[in-house]
């Protein structure tokens, strides 16, 4: 097993997340895509920590932090979505284009 395969899987996951982030119409699914991104990052961190820094495993520490921050962010994100839903009765991203030019 090489580092590259982990990195490639993580990159693939990241790209899938990006694709979901940009194309989803549902705001919740955008949040889910962001979770995918963060998990791709976590996978990277774990892989690097395992292959390059087996002694001090700083990557794993980072991963723990990222997980906690991601949880908080998802909570706030959902709160925002909920607030928007209360006002506008929809979670369709295409309806949220009020702040244009």
């Amino acid at each position, binding site marked *: 097993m090489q580092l*590259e395969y982990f990195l490639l899987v993580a990159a693939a996951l990241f790209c899938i997340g*990006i694709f979901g982030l940009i194309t989803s119409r549902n705001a919740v699914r955008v949040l889910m895509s962001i979770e995918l991104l963060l998990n791709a990052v976590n996978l990277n961190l774990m892989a690097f920590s395992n292959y390059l820094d087996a002694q001090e495993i700083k990557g794993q520490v980072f991963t723990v932090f990222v997980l906690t921050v991601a949880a908080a962010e998802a909570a706030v994100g959902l709160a925002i979505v909920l607030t928007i839903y209360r006002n506008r009765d929809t979670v369709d991203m295409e309806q*949220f*284009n009020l702040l244009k*030019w």
Partner: protein
Amino acid sequence: MQFFLQTIWFVPLYALMGAVLTIPWSPGIIRRTGPRPAGYINLLMTFIGFSHGIIALQATWNQPAQQIIIPWLQVANLDISLPLEISPITVGAMVLVTGMNLLAQIYAVGYMEMDWGWARFYSLLALFECGICALALCNSLFFSYVILEILTLGTYLLVGLWFSQPLVVTGARDAFLTKRVGDLVLLMGVLALFSLTGTWNYWELSDWAATAHPDPKVITLVTLALIAGPMGKCAQFPLHLWLDEAMEGPLPSTILRNSVVVATGAWVLIKLEPILSLSPITMSALVLIGAVTAVGGSCIAIAQIDVKRALSYSVSAYMGLVFIAVGTGQNDAALLLVLTHAVAMGLLVMSVGGIIWNNITQDLTQMGGLWSRRPISALAFLGGTAALIGCPPFGSFWALLNLADTLWAVQPWLVGLVLLVNALTAFSLVRIFSLIFGGKPKQMTVRSPEALWLLVLPMTLLLGFTLHLPLVLESVALLPNWVNLNKDVAMLLFWSSVFGCTLSGVIYLGNALPKPVQLPSKALQNLFAYDFYTPDIYRFSIVFAVDRVSKIVAWVDRFIVDGAVNLVGLASILGGESLKYSTSGQSQFYALTILIGISIIGAFLSFPHWSAYNNVFNFGL
């Protein structure tokens, strides 16, 4: 006496002081007393100047010319000083100018009776007096040019005195622009001359000309430029239309203009004669211009029905004779002609002005039969006529004789031309006389009392001086010596005058021809009556070209230069207006933009390393 001679340069200053002191009586400043004190102040100032000039003239008589130098400006190695020449000729010219202006101002007191604009009128008259006296005095081409330009501005303002009349406005415009063009070309000559000679002093110029051998082409161009100024000032072809249109101005100023102001150009020309004679082409051009103007002007004068215009073309014609005199190197004849023409023409204009003043019309075809009721004006007109044409023993006879006598030896065909001009002018003046004073009274002249004493007094004074002019000339030894004279020329001159007068008298006083007289060719008559259609020639040549070019330039400026700059602004606006749609309001779109940005930056940053890591990403394929 010497004190008055040394302070002769006060004379222009008196007039200038009068011009300034007049201004408070403008209707907008002193509102209660009326404008008359303005005229009286100027009369006083002019009288002081005249007396000063007379005393100085006695002091300067038979004395050598002196020069006073007043420093004006020293910059780097250019020293522009104002030299004043004090000689019998310059002081005499100043006496002539102040004397004519004194008479014209007395005349104006009567003529401008019903006018409110005395302050403007008299201050401009005084400005003219000041300018011409300063021109007579100054011995520097540069300051002559300065004064000529000030006088051009003065002409604009004086012709435009009654600016509520549309023809006055166009006349003043033409007078300014036409003379300005001549002056500007003169400026080119003045500047070019300095680089050749290093001086603008007339005496030094004349010394330079005595020994110089400049490049013929250069000196020809320079001298041609130098005659362009006097050409415009003296109303010579083709810059003559302004004098015709300047007849829209008030008549008392016309006295001054016709007699003295147009002679300012001739004065400069005479002073420049040593330079001009360096170039034979220029001298021929002078003779040609003078000849064309003299013959054309006299022919046009005969065909006019406006009495002021009929006189103004005679002025052009006589200035043409001055050009011929200068063009053949006869400065004395030219100066004498300027003097005799000034008094005679002043007298003619005064006489005619009195007629216009209480017959209202200027149309010769509407006048007639005034001889019995306007004897003084009629005699003044006759006196002026006799003094203007070659009629011995009056003034211009001697000037013309002096001119023709020398021409007889060098260019005999010019004698024929002088005789022709003399005959034509005689015809023209007797025609004016016959139409005004002869025949039967017409509707406009049925009741015509002799004018106010203020108009008659200067007229008779000037008549007296005109009649005494030969005696004056004799006493100062300016008359040609009778023994050396070519008596054939004198007889020819006399007979040409007699011929012109008689023919005109027979035609206009006799009943043989129906009036108004028609030439066999209507087209020819119109050609002269409309002065060779000069306005149309101007309009279709210079005015057309300048107008078209300025319109094109204005168009280029508005649409191409402005357009280019505006295009920049428009492009910025369009850029902003169209690029704002990049702010789509979709946060996902922003995310995409960020992503693309990062990808591009990443690609750029990693580009140098691609080949190095090629194998890493090759996966061994």
